[in-house]
């Protein structure tokens, strides 16, 4: 089972993670961080395949996928 962690301190609410997820796991939440940005959340975490697109795309390294896939598999995806 894959698990998504979002670091609110670094996220700038750009929503790229939401856009790149092929499974539609992520969505915008109503929660704002201390800087006022709207935070994403994993609404359908069970659909996460661990492809790591969100983690690789995030400009702020604010999203980490805790995955049962190895990083080698993700790189070769």
């Amino acid at each position, binding site marked *: 089972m894959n698990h998504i962690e979002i*670091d609110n*301190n*670094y996220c*700038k*609410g*750009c*929503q*790229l993670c*939401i*856009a*790149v997820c092929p499974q539609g796991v992520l969505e915008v939440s109503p929660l704002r961080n201390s800087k006022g*940005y709207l935070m994403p959340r994993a609404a359908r975490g069970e659909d996460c395949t661990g492809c*790591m*697109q969100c*983690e*690789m*795309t*995030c*400009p*702020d*390294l*604010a*999203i*980490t996928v805790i995955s049962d896939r190895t*990083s080698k598999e*993700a*790189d*070769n*995806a």
Partner: protein
Amino acid sequence: MHPLAEKMLRKSALPSIYCPGCGHGTVLNNFLRTVDKLGVYDNLALVGGIGCSGWTPVFIKADTIHTLHGRAVAVATGLKLAQPERKVVVFCGDGDCVAIGGNHFIHAARRNIDLTVIMLNNNIYGMTGGQVAPTTPYQARTQTSPRGNPEQPFDACELARAAGATYIARWTTAQPAQMAKSMREAMEHKGFSFVEVVVQCPTQAGRYMYGTGSAVDLYEMLKTNSVRLSKAGELSAEELTGKIVVGRLLQREDRPEFTEGVYGLCQAKGA
């Protein structure tokens, strides 16, 4: 915090100067992944120019030299000659690399000095507020081309090829895994490696040139306009207009590397 960020970011320099959704951050992200995968974190020297992209090495906890505008490749040349075994990586923007830094860039490629130059290309001068760059498309509107750009842009990869670079790749932020792989190949390659990454700039290029400040919209544009090298061969020049050809564009091993040449002279006879 992401484990790579925890390990490799210079926290005293954070928060970064990147706007929300800036493509530079994606390049930084994948550079850290590359460094980790290669196991070269303890052997790095990072050199950055001036501009948003030039800040990338400052945010990385390593030996970092932040240079003047356009001079990163020249500084890296001296550094590499002083420490030939060091993995020296240069981060520059399109203006930094091929405008003010153009002369140093073409000569470093000509020398085939073992450097990796990562040019973060947002087709504009971002830090100064959105002026025309040598990579800005023809007729595009920017702060210094308010009636449309009368200039034709460089293809920096073609410039690198003509100048003698021996590894050239181009990707956009829409291909992070491939970008990381090319960075890896570039750093492993012994010779002048050039990796161009086309990045979205929501604040300047997005708003002035493309009419949108949405990082997501600009990202989708990059993705849509990317054409793999293998496919590009099948398209006509017309079909390729406005497209970004991505892939490993060149790799050759037949040119002598500069630092080896310089230190090889120590064995040779003088005049």
